């Protein structure tokens, strides 16, 4: 299995003289998620064109990039969304092939996706939904299921992570929630499911500054030495709240640059254009219609 440095060599240095080789924080930490040369398409349109990424326990990664760069595709693909087809490459979770698992099996195993646009599900009680989801994860972990009372205790405690009003439990899943409430509900689910790999897709979008702080504080609270977090974002402002160990820049379906948190600041200052300079003409960002980014 190639190391993270080898993969970086392959991926970045090809096009850039400036290639930041960064230290692995805990080289001995368990590799939780390992993505190798991942290619994927939606319909007939190729979106991912060779993504390499390794996430170890205790790390926080951020993937940045403009609309259409493939970052949302990456997150949904990892969760098993049926709209995406993997055409090449591998994804291993704790050494096991992740791609053969059904979406619910991934969730039960500990891979979590916080959605950019959580859907509303009228009629289905939020509390009931959270309980069924939590118990299915617990069964997979070999922990005993919680009855309604024990679960209510747990959920009330976890509500504090995102400072959510218990009244939200009585409503239908996400129905009529504001943007901020939906995102808090996502982080609440993360708090209940205790994933080892948490992918948070544009968790900052649609949040005002107060909500952003609450959600970020929740994520920071949930980050442990045993799990890892992959933040997918457009903007620096989320990274002001949650400090990443690594920042990756995606364009045209590949990770073109990897660096520390300074890379995000540089992007903020210089925009994305300078990243594109290294692209071959056929890979120009424009050739991928943002509309294909399935949301």
């Amino acid at each position, binding site marked *: 299995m190639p190391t993270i440095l080898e993969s970086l060599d392959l991926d970045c240095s090809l096009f850039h003289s400036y290639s930041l080789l960064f230290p692995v924080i805990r080289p001995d930490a368990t590799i939780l998620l390992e993505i190798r040369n991942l290619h994927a398409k939606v319909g007939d349109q190729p979106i991912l064109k060779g993504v390499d990424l390794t996430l170890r326990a205790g790390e926080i990664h951020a993937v940045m990039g403009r609309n259409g760069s493939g970052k949302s595709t990456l997150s949904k693909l990892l*969760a*098993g*969304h*049926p*709209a995406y087809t993997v055409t090449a490459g591998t994804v291993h979770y704790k050494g096991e092939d992740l791609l053969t698992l*059904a*979406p*619910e099996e*991934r*969730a*039960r195993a500990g891979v*979590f*996706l916080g*959605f950019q646009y*959580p*859907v509303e*599900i*009228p*009629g*289905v*009680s939020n509390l*009931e*939904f959270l309980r*069924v*989801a939590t118990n*299915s*994860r617990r069964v*997979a972990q070999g922990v005993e299921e919680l009855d309604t009372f024990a679960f209510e205790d747990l959920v009330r405690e976890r509500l504090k992570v995102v400072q959510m009003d218990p009244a939200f439990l009585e409503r*239908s*899943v996400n129905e009529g929630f504001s943007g901020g409430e939906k995102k808090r509900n996502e982080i609440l*689910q993360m708090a209940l*499911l205790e994933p080892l790999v948490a992918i948070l897709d544009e968790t900052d979008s649609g949040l005002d500054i107060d909500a952003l702080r609450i959600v970020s504080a929740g994520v920071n609270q949930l980050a442990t030495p045993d799990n890892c977090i992959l933040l997918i974002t457009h903007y620096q402002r989320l990274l002001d709240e949650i400090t990443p160990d690594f920042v990756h820049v995606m364009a045209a379906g590949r990770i073109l640059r990897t660096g520390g948190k300074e890379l995000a600041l540089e992007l903020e200052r210089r925009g994305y254009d300078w990243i594109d300079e290294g692209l071959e003409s056929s890979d120009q960002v424009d050739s991928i219609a943002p509309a294909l980014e399935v949301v």
Partner: protein
Amino acid sequence: MTSTASVGDLVSQPYRYGFVTDIETEKIAKGLDEDVVRLISAKKHEPAFLLNFRLRAYAQWLQMEEPDWAALGHGPIDYQEMIYYAAPKQQSKKASLDEVDPKLLETFDKLGIPLSEQKRLSNVAVDAVFDSVSIATTYREKLAEHGVIFCSISEAVKDYPDLIERYLGTVVPSNDNFFAALNSAVFSDGSFVFIPKGVCCPMELSTYFRINSGDTGQFERTLIVAEEAASVSYLEGCTAPMFDTNQLHAAVVELVALDDANIKYSTVQNWYAGDEKGVGGIYNFVTKRGQCRGARSHISWTQVETGSAITWKYPSCVLQGVDSSGEFYSVALTNNLQQADTGTKMIHVAPGTRSTIISKGISAGRSSNSYRGLVQIGPKAVGARNYSQCDSMLIGDTAAANTFPYLRSQQPDASIEHEASTCRISEDQLFYLQSRGIGLEESVSMMVSGFCRDVFNQLPMEFAAEADKLLALKLEGSVG
């Protein structure tokens, strides 16, 4: 994505109540004529007024034609090929449950309706009807202490002839429609409930109907009367064995609510629906109607319709009392080649009357599911209000969902509001639930029961979970 196909697969599962009880049955010869009507009446030792009622209905029936306006299709029904009376052999109804044929008790045990003292539900009184007769009614004495009468209609004819004569056929006249006329002529058994003035019935009442014979039509008749300020909650359940022929079930239910009375009538209908090729199953042609005769009276129908090859029923409310109100909450699930044409009629006669209709139809397979409803506001119904909501959920692209609401108003100071929509289980919603570790099967059943939630909330507590389970059962099966 492929999950649409698998969602379709999910809705097919074997029928769990398809067994036949092997019991000696007394049947009369098949076919129907005036003598058969007289014979049924004689077997039940009925008073003259009831025989006359039957004969009049029979004469009317002969003049009528089967209705053909519903969105239903079925071969001709041969009314002479049917047996109109079948009863398990035992002498007259037993005073004590211990004397009831253990096979019958076992049958009901198997259906989840334990009747024996030790096992029966603590807060639900049950009348168990097997083919044409009622075999047991639990908690009769306890109810009698409160003045509540709960017994089979045959017993009521003997014990309370005045009440029967006063109310029978007054809500659904014998010539109301083809199937009601047939029922009036040959009805065998059913339940009678009488709640006297000011009494709130201390427990849930429930009738469980079981068709056992393959060639017998079931024609039960239920009458519920709630006097002034009385209230009652009643539930009926139904199952039948699997036969490859169709059996006719033509029931009539009449409800009468006097001033300030309150009747809540719930149905969980799970007759055998036929197989996946549409062979066999019950033809469920039922007339259910309630009259809010008194001021401020209230009648509420809740139905969960999952069985039968064909369902044709429109539980209705005639709102005659000032400020009276009617409700109709319905879930109808059809699969394979099932056909359902069901809905309600809300007839606003008096001022200040209100009605609410919530209908949820779920169509899967090649089934057809139609909501048909009438809201009529008469010229005197000043201040009447109706709200209707009819939602359809389609599973797969070969099922049909139709909505046929008829709205009529003749009163300017009244309002009718009707909304209808159609949806399917969206892939995004399914993926969201799956991405939280919930399996496809459970996700689908969660969404379906979420879709039906407004209706399930109306069921008595003991049965809400039951209905949810029944629906989940219908949706259970192999994934992929």
